[in-house]
């Protein structure tokens, strides 16, 4: 957990006071909507179909139990008793009233939480792997660097009015679980071969209308230069990014139009003049931030304690353990994923009661720490293996122990037309129907790792381009249709999905997906070849052939 200091607390109090005043003046008619809109966006307040939507920032997906309890309080007091966790590790409330915002934000500020820069043309939440600091094989805890980026990017005076939104992600493990290759800037912290940590810098990744995989522009950036280098990239983008067309305004368009080489040259030129200035990070600054991250006092424990071994005789526990529990870098500990993907329920939501219960469980079993995964699940990153049986019973009782993590029913979905003013089609009921068709746990396990991503419009908030199966909602003659893609990947070998065939009407989607899955089961080279690898080997054609044949 990062411990904020007085500077952060004061800043937040001042921001809450400022925004509260802006809300009061808007409600009194002293500010027009045009004047107010850009201000409310900077605090994460959108207008959606039914109400305002408040997007709260969860820096690098890390929460304390006190913070999670406050999120529950806001859901209960100002919303309809639940919140939605997003693909950028944030939380959204769908039913907020503008007049309640000053009060809600004051409450959130008491535990250091806010909606600053979760919207608008500025640098958004820097995201990372939800297992950061717990999983083995990391060069360093990427959250330290995400915090450094957070401090630099918050209220940055030069980058408050960028051509468009800007998203940064950082990871430090061999397996990238932060989707860095589809971010405006993606950072991978790697060992340079001599035991030194360096950043590989990618730019111009992104999804939406024109998806791109990011391009490497610098292979080995010394960490002390991280901020000056990011500043150089943002300066080039701020100056040269397009402002004439909202659909061509992201940095990915600039990188594509200039080419990675020319873009890199301009960044290096800008960087030369600032690299040794005030943004150069010295050891003292880095150590100070690192020291504000508190890690658990781990006991000296053994793997596979007797309590765990005995409990594995219970088939239901064993199934959950195999699915939802991951290896921790410290012996005797484990990383636990809490599935927010109940069969027949909306993906990625938690009720206020669930949030409170999870906060309590985090205190009892997890050193008071919770993570938000961009796959829209939650995670307790530091749990003693001997506590897993008891924890499982309690997670199961509150409905967050469905053993479907990374399976076909672990669907990533945007809110879609049920909530969002931008959507063409609904996504949530489709996700629910899919979870019902594949509800059988043995069947889901047999199918294996399969990421389904659903977006209700081309803005791709469900990240459909990088889904193993991607689903994009479109509108044709007033009807909901869905374009399906196969073979997208979100990891260090990121790839965009390929179109399967003609768009499918709402009523046909689940059947088509079932036929695609059956094709995979018939053609795979054994259980070890997961769906996305089979698609890569076979191409889309054999799936297309069978997907569209009616029974």
């Amino acid at each position, binding site marked *: 957990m990062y411990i904020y200091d007085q500077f952060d607390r004061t800043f937040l109090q001042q921001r809450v006071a400022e925004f509260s005043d802006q809300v009061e003046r808007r409600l009194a008619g002293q500010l027009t909507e045009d004047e107010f809109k850009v201000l409310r966006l900077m605090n994460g307040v959108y207008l959606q179909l039914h109400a305002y939507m408040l997007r709260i920032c969860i820096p690098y997906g890390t929460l304390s139990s006190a913070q999670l309890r406050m999120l529950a309080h806001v859901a209960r007091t100002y919303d309809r008793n639940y919140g939605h966790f997003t693909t950028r590790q944030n939380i959204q409330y769908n039913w907020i009233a503008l007049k309640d915002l000053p009060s809600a934000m004051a409450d959130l500020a008491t535990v250091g939480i806010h909606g600053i820069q979760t919207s608008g043309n500025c640098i958004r939440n820097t995201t990372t792997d939800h297992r950061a600091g717990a999983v083995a094989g990391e060069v360093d805890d990427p959250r330290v660097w995400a915090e450094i980026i957070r401090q630099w990017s918050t209220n940055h005076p030069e980058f408050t009015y960028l051509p468009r939104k800007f998203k940064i992600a950082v990871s430090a493990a061999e397996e990238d679980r932060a989707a860095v290759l589809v971010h405006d800037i993606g950072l991978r912290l790697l060992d340079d071969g001599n035991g030194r940590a360096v950043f590989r810098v990618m730019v111009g990744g992104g999804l939406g209308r024109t998806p791109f995989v990011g391009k490497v522009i610098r292979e080995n950036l010394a960490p002390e230069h991280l901020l000056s280098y990011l500043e150089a990239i943002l300066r080039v983008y701020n100056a040269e990014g397009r402002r004439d067309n909202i659909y061509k305004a992201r940095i990915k368009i600039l990188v594509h139009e200039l080419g990675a080489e020319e873009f890199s040259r301009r960044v290096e030129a800008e960087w030369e003049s600032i690299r040794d200035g005030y943004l150069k990070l010295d050891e003292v600054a880095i150590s100070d931030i690192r020291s504000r991250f508190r890690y658990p006092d781990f006991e000296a424990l053994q793997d596979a304690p007797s309590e765990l071994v005995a409990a594995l005789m219970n088939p239901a526990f064993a199934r959950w353990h195999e699915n939802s529990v991951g290896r921790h870098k410290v012996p005797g500990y484990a990383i636990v994923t809490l599935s927010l993907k109940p069969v027949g329920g909306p993906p990625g939501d938690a009720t206020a*009661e669930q949030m409170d219960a999870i906060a309590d469980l985090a205190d009892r079993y997890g050193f008071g720490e919770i993570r938000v995964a961009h796959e829209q699940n939650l995670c307790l990153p530091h749990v003693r293996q001997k506590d897993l049986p008891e924890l499982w019973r309690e997670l199961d009782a509150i409905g967050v122990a469905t053993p479907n993590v990374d399976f076909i029913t672990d669907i990533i979905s945007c809110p879609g037309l049920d909530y969002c003013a931008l959507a063409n089609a609904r996504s949530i009921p489709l996700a629910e129907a899919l979870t019902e068709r594949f509800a059988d746990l043995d069947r889901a396990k047999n199918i294996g790792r399969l990421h389904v991503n659903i977006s209700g419009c081309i803005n791709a908030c469900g990240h459909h381009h990088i889904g193993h199966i991607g689903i994009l909602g479109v509108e044709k003659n007033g009807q909901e249709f869905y374009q399906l893609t196969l073979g997208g990947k979100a990891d260090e070998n990121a790839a965009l999905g390929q179109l399967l065939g003609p768009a499918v009407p709402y009523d046909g989607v689940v059947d088509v997906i079932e036929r695609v899955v059956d094709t995979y089961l018939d053609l795979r080279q054994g259980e070890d070849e997961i769906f996305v690898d089979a698609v890569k080997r076979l191409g889309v054609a054999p799936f297309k052939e069978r997907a569209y044949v009616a029974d």
Partner: protein
Amino acid sequence: MVAPQQQKLRVTGPVAITGNSLAEGIVVWRTADGTWSRRMSDAAVVSTSEEALALLQMAEKDGINAVGCYVAHVATDSQGRAKPLNLRERIRTEGPTVALPGQV
């Protein structure tokens, strides 16, 4: 996706002006006497783009009461009152088509 407010106005049938109330964000409909109602059936219905634009401009001036105003195509009942024509307006009128978490 382009939000309705940003699309070019093409009136192909009955339309009404809708938005969200400033303080709560609740869906509201512009009435013939220049107020806002939460009931879609109270909406003023017109059928030409000139009338629609005029109504929209009046509505937008009323920023103290409603925001995010746009022209929505509607269906009408036997008495000419507005009712939802498409899925989007049906959802705005009736709420999400899915149960909220924790609801049965």
